[in-house]
């Protein structure tokens, strides 16, 4: 197998794994917060966090350039402090995948947390357990399937991310060319056999992820 194909497969798995880890670390507390706290602006925050689900990925990528580009709102400070810019690095692919896939985790985990029977949460409090203890021992275990489904969907979405990644990370062979970007290049240059292989691989992997997500999103009991 061509070295560049192997590189793309490895990079896609790496980008998806890192962005999914970040999604779990940040998306789960956000989903809990949105599900369990009643505050003004809650739905606005939900919309802001999940709008990349419906925006064209190029628009999401555009916003990310405005924020993290070398002259962007955040990027210019980062560049002046460190001389480093996230643009056209594999970190940019992680950032793009993170922003585009985060809504899937938030939507699924929030719904799962909201569906936990309120009397079980009250029971935990009356048994002397604090809110963090209740979240860890009652709410998250009972919402586990929804959370795992959210993780798997986020991973699958991150693997398939194209538009925002292209805007932010470019399509640099051996550097930022993830599987979807490599397929785009291979199809453009008429290298069909390698394109077929990657398309089939990506389709199979996505199918397996969806199957796993479906199995996990069924109710526990």
């Amino acid at each position, binding site marked *: 197998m061509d070295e560049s194909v192997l590189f793309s497969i490895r990079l896609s798995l790496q980008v998806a794994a890192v962005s999914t880890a970040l999604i779990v670390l940040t998306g789960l507390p956000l989903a809990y917060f949105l599900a369990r706290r009643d505050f003004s602006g809650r739905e606005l925050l939900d919309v802001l966090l999940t709008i990349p689900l419906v925006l064209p990925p190029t628009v999401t990528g555009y916003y990310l350039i405005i924020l993290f580009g070398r002259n962007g709102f955040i990027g210019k400070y980062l560049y002046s402090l460190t001389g480093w810019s996230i643009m056209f690095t594999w970190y940019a692919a992680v950032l793009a995948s993170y922003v585009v896939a985060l809504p899937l985790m938030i939507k699924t985990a929030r719904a799962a947390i909201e569906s936990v*029977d309120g*009397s*079980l949460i*009250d*029971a*935990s*409090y*009356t*048994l*002397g*357990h*604090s809110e963090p*203890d209740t979240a860890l*021992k*009652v709410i998250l*275990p*009972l919402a586990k399937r929804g959370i795992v489904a959210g993780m798997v969907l986020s991973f699958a979405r991150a693997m398939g991310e194209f538009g925002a990644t292209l805007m932010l990370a470019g399509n640099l062979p051996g550097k930022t060319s993830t599987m979807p970007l490599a397929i785009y290049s291979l199809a453009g240059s008429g290298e069909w056999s390698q394109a077929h292989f990657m398309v089939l691989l990506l389709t199979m992997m996505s199918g397996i992820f969806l199957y796993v997500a479906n199995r996990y999103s069924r109710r*526990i*009991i």
Partner: protein
Amino acid sequence: MGLQVSLQKKLNGFNLDIGWEIRNELAVLFGFSGAGKSMTLQLIAGLMRPDNGRVSLDDTIYYDSVTNTDFPANKRPFGYVFQNLALFPHMTVIGNILYGAPSAQKHEKMNHALEMIRAFRLAGLEGRYPHEISGGQKQRVAVARALMRRPRALLLDEPFSALDRPLRIEMRGFLREVRDEFNIPVILVTHDFEEASAIADKVIIYEHGRIAQTGTPEEIRSAETPSGACAVRV
């Protein structure tokens, strides 16, 4: 002394305004659905916040709107048995019971839980999940779990409503044993007057968010029945 409750709460057009006091006895809150009985238990336990009032047990005040005292539910020493029992479906019988003593030492906690298993006739069911045991066994697990942290009062929100008659009668005897053994105020919510008169030391009759009558079952039976609820059932 004992449990003293005075509570006012307006919620979705319903207006609760009650006050009562009980000692270490078995009190029954009786009345039709929607009279404010379950709401009273939730307000006592700290699961809902009153608009005004006071909740105290012996020398400790757990809620007082005047002094702005408000203990969160997990800091109030009230055992609570929910109408749907609220057993944790992902924990076994022993797991549910152990969860009832969050702060105790592990070894001491296990010994206490095993004592509870014996006392509540649950031996052999330790490793079963709630969906694998019968209705009566679930009730006993729920009460055992609520008593694990040695609460200073036990609140029961119609926990026997889903049981058939023989089992309800068995559970009544069982509740009397709990009252005698633990010597704490036990408050049971019910809309079944037969149940109320069979086990109560004291009956508190609720009507539309107010107290209509208070007394022993005999006093309630012999009194004239101004209350529609009583007239129907007695």
